[in-house]
């Protein structure tokens, strides 16, 4: 539970043209994520699996993604996933201790994933600004077959 806990770096993809790794930045727990076929990432819908154990309730849930290149945040994207009056996800309202699991297609809001070497930091926070999940994703993408 100490902040110094180092979670392992997980490999999501390791192919010739595409490598994706991630590491949890939540001191309380690791984060579970995988992609069914990395080659599908070239298309903009692909199948993922993701799971977390909630350490906090998510009556409200906010996602924030930063695109970091050479240590600099060059793009920030945030989205409200759960808020009073609009629960976009069926998980909204879940409580501390519940296990969330999603398995299925994900459609990227962007047309293609950026090429090059970069890091995406992703954080989910709740109504009390508690970290619900946090991950640093390292991408080396040299796919050009769109």
């Amino acid at each position, binding site marked *: 539970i100490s902040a110094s806990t180092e979670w392992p770096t997980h490999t999501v993809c390791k192919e010739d043209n595409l490598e994706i790794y991630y590491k949890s930045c939540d001191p309380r727990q690791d984060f579970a994520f995988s992609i069914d076929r990395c080659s599908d990432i070239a298309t903009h819908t692909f199948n993922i699996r993701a799971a977390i154990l909630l350490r906090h309730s998510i009556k409200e849930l906010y996602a924030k993604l930063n695109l970091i290149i050479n240590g600099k945040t060059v793009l920030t994207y945030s989205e409200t996933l759960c808020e009073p009056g609009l629960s976009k996800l069926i998980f909204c309202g879940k409580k501390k201790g*519940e296990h969330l699991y999603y398995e299925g297609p994900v459609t990227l809001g962007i047309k293609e994933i950026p090429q090059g070497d970069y890091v995406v930091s992703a954080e989910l926070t709740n109504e009390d600004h508690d970290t619900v999940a946090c991950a640093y994703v390292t991408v080396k993408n040299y796919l050009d077959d769109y």
Partner: protein
Amino acid sequence: RKHFQSCSFFMSSLQGFLKTSLRINFVAVNKSYNCEGLGLTKIPEELPVTTEILDFSFNVLPSLENSTFSELKSLLLLDLTRCQINWVYDGAFHSNRQLKTLVLTGNLLMFLSDTAFVGPQSLKQLVLTQTGIASMFFIPMTNLDSLDTLILGNNHISSLQLPPNFPTQNLKYLDFQMNNIKTITAADVSLLQKTSNITLIFKGNDITYIEPGAFQSNFYSLDFGGCADIPGILAGLQNSTGQTLWLGTFHGMEKEPFITPDVLQGLCNISVKDLYLQLRHFKNLNTDMFHCLTRLRKLDLTQTHINMLPAGISGMRSLEELVLNANSFEHLCNINSASFPSLIHLHIKGNSELLQLGSGCLEKLAKLQHLDLSKSYIKSFDCCKEALSGLSSLRQLNLSHNIKLHLHDVFIKDSASLELLDLASTALHINTSQGPFRNLHLLQVLNLSSSHINTSIQHLFQGLESLIFLDLSQNNFELGIMQNNKLFQELSNLEVLILSSCELAAIGNQAFHSLKKLRHVDLSHNKLAAFSTDAFSSLKNIYLNFAHNRIHIIPHDKLAPLAGHCIINLSYNPLNCTCSNIDLITWYKQNLDKIEDPKETRCSEPKWHSGAQLATVSLSCGITTGGIIAVV
């Protein structure tokens, strides 16, 4: 939850703080303990017998036996979330006669003894979320007669058949969300006929059939969120009566047929007041769609992918609340508001298109009290006299988080009874000779946070004699100085003033002297070097937040007036912890009960003490010719 101690049993040092803090709504602090995630394998013996609230989540208790909690005779609430509990033996809560709430979320229960819940005189809430339950019969019903809330979400229940001794006497809330219930027969739920005003949650069950008449009793709320077969559900609900019916859905749900008038036909045979349809897709939204909705009090169409409500809807005279959030209206007139003459609440928040206000689009809504137009990309070059005309009953108006409003005269004309106006994060261009809010004599709350407002307009707050709350945070003041000017002159009833993040470097000596009732001032996140108490006309019972400023030293004369029930926040200031600040340090330690966030109230000087909490600093100062000697 914030107020729990981390399973440390000495709360005295914080108790005073907690008692007087404005923000913390606590219950019997020294009877509440938080042992969350400490890896404990038993209840610590040090927990007092008087403990009423215990958060023991994320520990390790594979078996609950009649000795496990036997010492905690005063427990009201016990949270055992994720404690790896598999076995609940006879009389596990036998000694906990006062227990009202038991949370067993996230434990894979392998056995619940028939006497598992015997003991408590009136157990009210039982939370069995994600406990692996596959049948209602797994839960022993002995001594559950007092239950008002039973949460069974995220289990594997596939049959709603209830045990014959299922407790219905006091039950008000029964949550089956995300189980595996596909069909509901009348026999299954016949016991629920004995309840009244119950809330039943079936969200996330793929319900394909409900036997007509299964829910003939008077329910309070039914939630079928995410269920695909709305006609099937409505057929099953025929002839039933209730307050709320939740038929919305969620992102990523498969099988989402369009909503057509046929789909909602079944509502003609159901008496329900509030209907929620979030995230459903409407196909050909025409007046027929409203045929069976005429008796509704509230209609929530949040993000239902609509860009207009058809003209000519008739019969919606009962509708008091219409929620149109997160849709894509291009013009406010496209909601054809005249069809809803009884509206009291109208929400068009988070519109995905630039929403044009037009002129008089809402003028028939003479009863409207609450209007929310926030986050809707609104840009108006003459706001909002004509655009929001006719709203003679309006009390609350939210235009925050829009793009830009130009004010050429009074902000709003017909709404003299407005009590709350939120313009936060919407750029305001004020081009008036008199105060734009001068006719709002009843306004109590005004939020102008981050509105790029020109604070040098002297008559800005003209006429706001009822104002109690004013948020000016994230606006700039000329030269970074809060002058002793007349800006606040008429705000004689103001109690709360937010000036955080205003880049303020200095505050005039008498800046707030006209605010006689001021009791909560937030000056955090500014560039203030001085802690100024002179600026306030009275320091009695005041809350002053100076966090995140540049204060090094506070002399004795600024501290002395802080008598009575004051709360001061000095966190995140570069406080000097040498003898030159002995006044503050001495006062601080004598007045810990007045300090908010003592954990982050730290020294920055001297270097060797940097980061120490002020409360832990011991100085021994004597005046010598050369200066002050400090012994840390």
